[in-house]
C-alpha cells in the first residue's frame, strides 16, 4: 500500500511538472501586464489574441506557412520513407548497417553543422528564400524519423497476408490499398505525426534557408519572444501547440501505449 502511495505521488509530481511550463504562457496570453510580485495579472485583456489573429501580426500567415511546409514535408517523407522502411524492416541485406547509419546521421549531426553548406548549395540552385527550399531542407531531419518508424512497423508486418491477397486475385495496388495500408496505417500515422512535428518545430534550417522571408510560426514566435511582448508570446505559443495537440487527440487511439519505434 505504501508503494501505491509513492507511485501516486510520483505520478502527480510528474503530471504537474509536465503541465507547469505551459501555465504561465496561457496566463500571459490574457494578461494586460503581469509584473513581479503579482501571482496573477492585475488586469486581463484579450488584445494579445486579437492581435495574434490580425493580419498585421503575421501570426496567421506564419501558422499557414508552418502548416503548408510541415504537411508537404510529411507527405514527401511518407512517399520516400514507406518504401525505404519496408526495405529495412523486411529484408536483411549487405550494407544495411550503413544505410541505417546514413539515416540516423542527419538526426545526430546538428543542423547548424549542415546549414551553412546547405545554404551555399541552395543559393546556387536558387532555392533560398522560398518555401520549396525550406521544405527540402526540412526533409533532412524529417525523412530519417519517418523511415525509422516505418522500418519498425514493417519489422512487425507479416507479408503472408499480401501473398494471400494476391492468390485471392487482388492486383498489386489492391493489395496495397486493402491489405498493406490498413496494416501499417497506425504506424504510418505515428511516423507522420513525428515527421510533422519535426518540421513544425524546425527553427534554424528555416531561418538559414528561408533567409527570413519564409516566416514560419517558430520564427514569428521567436521574434515576439525576444522583443518583450510576453502577452503576444503567450498567445502565439498556445497557438503553436494547438495543431500538434489536436492531431494527437485525433490519432490518440492509434498511439495509445504504442510509442514511436524510433530505435531501430
Amino acid at each position, binding site marked *: 500500500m505504501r508503494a501505491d502511495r509513492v507511485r501516486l505521488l510520483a505520478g502527480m509530481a510528474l503530471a504537474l511538472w509536465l503541465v507547469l511550463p505551459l501555465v504561465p504562457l496561457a496566463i500571459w496570453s490574457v494578461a494586460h501586464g503581469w509584473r513581479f510580485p503579482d501571482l496573477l495579472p492585475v488586469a486581463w485583456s484579450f488584445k494579445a489574441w486579437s492581435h495574434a489573429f490580425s*493580419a498585421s501580426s503575421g501570426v496567421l500567415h506564419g501558422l499557414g506557412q508552418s502548416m503548408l511546409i510541415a504537411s508537404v514535408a510529411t507527405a514527401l517523407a511518407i512517399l520516400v520513407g514507406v518504401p525505404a522502411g519496408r526495405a529495412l524492416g523486411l529484408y536483411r541485406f549487405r550494407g544495411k548497417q550503413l544505410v541505417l547509419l546514413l539515416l540516423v546521421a542527419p538526426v545526430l549531426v546538428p543542423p547548424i553543422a549542415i546549414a551553412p553548406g546547405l545554404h551555399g548549395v541552395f*543559393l546556387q540552385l536558387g532555392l533560398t528564400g522560398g518555401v520549396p527550399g525550406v521544405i527540402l531542407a526540412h526533409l533532412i531531419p524529417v525523412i530519417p524519423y519517418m523511415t525509422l518508424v516505418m522500418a519498425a512497423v514493417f519489422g512487425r508486418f507479416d507479408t503472408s497476408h499480401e501473398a494471400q491477397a494476391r492468390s485471392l486475385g487482388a492486383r498489386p495496388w489492391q493489395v496495397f490499398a486493402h491489405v498493406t495500408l490498413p496494416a501499417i496505417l497506425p504506424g504510418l500515422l505515428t511516423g507522420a505525426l513525428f515527421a510533422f512535428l519535426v518540421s513544425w518545430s524546425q527553427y534554424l534550417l528555416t531561418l538559414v534557408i528561408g533567409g527570413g522571408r519564409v516566416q514560419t510560426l517558430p520564427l514569428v514566435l521567436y521574434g515576439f519572444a525576444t522583443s518583450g511582448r510576453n502577452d503576444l508570446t503567450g498567445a502565439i505559443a498556445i497557438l503553436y501547440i494547438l495543431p500538434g495537440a489536436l492531431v494527437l487527440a485525433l490519432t490518440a487511439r492509434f498511439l495509445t501505449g504504442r510509442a514511436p519505434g524510433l530505435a531501430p
Partner: protein
Amino acid sequence: MLRLLAPLMLFTFAAEAETAADKALKSMTWDAIVAEARGGEVNWFMWGGADNINQYVSDHIAGILKRDYDITLNRVPITDAADIVNLVLTEKEAGIDAKGAVDLIWINGENFRSMKQADLAFCGYTDLLPNDALVNWENPAVANDFGVPVDECEVPWNTVQFAFAHDSAVTPEPPRDMASLLDWIKANPGRFTYPAPPDFTGSAFLRHVFIHAAGGPDSLIGPFDQTRFDEVATKTWAILNEIEPFLWREGQTYPNTIAQLNELFANGEVAFSFNYDPSQFGLAVQAGTWPESTRSFGLTDGTIGNTNYTLIPFNSPNKAAAMVVQNLLLSGDAQLEKAKTEVWGAAPAIEISRTSPEVKAGFAAIVGHPSVVSAQDLAKAALPELQADWLTAIEAGWKASVGN
C-alpha cells in the same frame, strides 16, 4: 573588421559597377518610375518586435501602397539587420546580381557602413523622390549615418535620441548626468545593468560611458584614431569594471538583449531601462508591460541622437516600387501618422516647416505620452553618433576587457 577589406576588394573589382537597368531607372521621370512600380512587390526587411510599428507598416503604409500604386508590401520581420546585410552579401558572393531577395531594409549605423563598403547598396537616386525635398540634407546628423556619409544611398525615416526610463514611484529622483548615474549605481547595488553588446542599445549605452570618459564628444568626432581610442578605452574599461560588482547579479551576467533589460525593469529587478527610441517607453506602458508611473529623461551632459533610414540593396528586383515606398514613407502624412502617440510616437525625419499647413497643424496637435520625454527636451543636450569604426572597436574591447 579590417580584414573585411581584403576579400571585399576582390569582389568590388569583380562586380560590375552598375547594371544598365539601374542606369535607365535613374534617368526616368518620377511619373515613369511610378508607372514602372505599378503592380510590383516589395520585400521590406525590418525589425519586427513592436506590434504598433508592425501595424503601422502592414496596415497603414501597405494599405495606401495597394490602393494608390497597386504595390504589394511584404513586411519581413527580422531580429537583427546584420542578418540581412549578410544575406545580401551571400547573394553577391553567389553572383545573384539582379534577383535578390531583399528590396528594402530598415537600417543604420555599422550595418549601413558594411553595405556601403561592400557595395551592396543602390545609390545615387534619392533626389528623384519628390518628398526628398522635405529632408534637410544640410543637417550633418541626417547627411551622415554614424559618421558615414549617406551619399544618396539611403533615405531617412526617423530621428531618435537616446533616453533613460525609470519608475517614478520607485526612483522619484533619478540621476540626471553620467557621473551621478555611475555614483547611483555604486550606491544601489544590483539595481542597474545594461545589455551586452553587440546588442544595439547596450552598445549605445557603452558609447555614452565612452564619451563621458573622453570628457565629451569633441575629441572623438571624425575617423577612427587608434591612439585616442586606446587612451579613452582604458578609462572606460576602468569605469565599467569599477561598477561591475554593483550591477545586477554582480555583473557576472549581462542581459543579452534590450528586451531582457526591459523585462528586468518591468519586474522591478533593475531601476532603469533605456532606449534609442523613447517612444518605446510609451508603447510598453500602453501594452501594460510597464507601470503607468514610468517616466523618462535625457542626461544633462547629453545623449546620443541619430537618424535611421531605409535602403535599397543593389540587387533588388523591384527598385522602382521600393522607391515609391520610400517616397511614401517620407511624405508629411505618413510621418505625421507615425508621430501620433497612439500609433508609434516616432520623431519625424523631415523638416516639419517644409510640410503642408495641415501636416504642420497635425504635428502641433500631438500630445506626447506622459512616459515619453519629448524630443524637444532631449534635443537640448544632444551628442553626435560616433563613426562606425569607433563603435566596433568599443564593442570588441568591451568583450575582451569587461564582459568576459
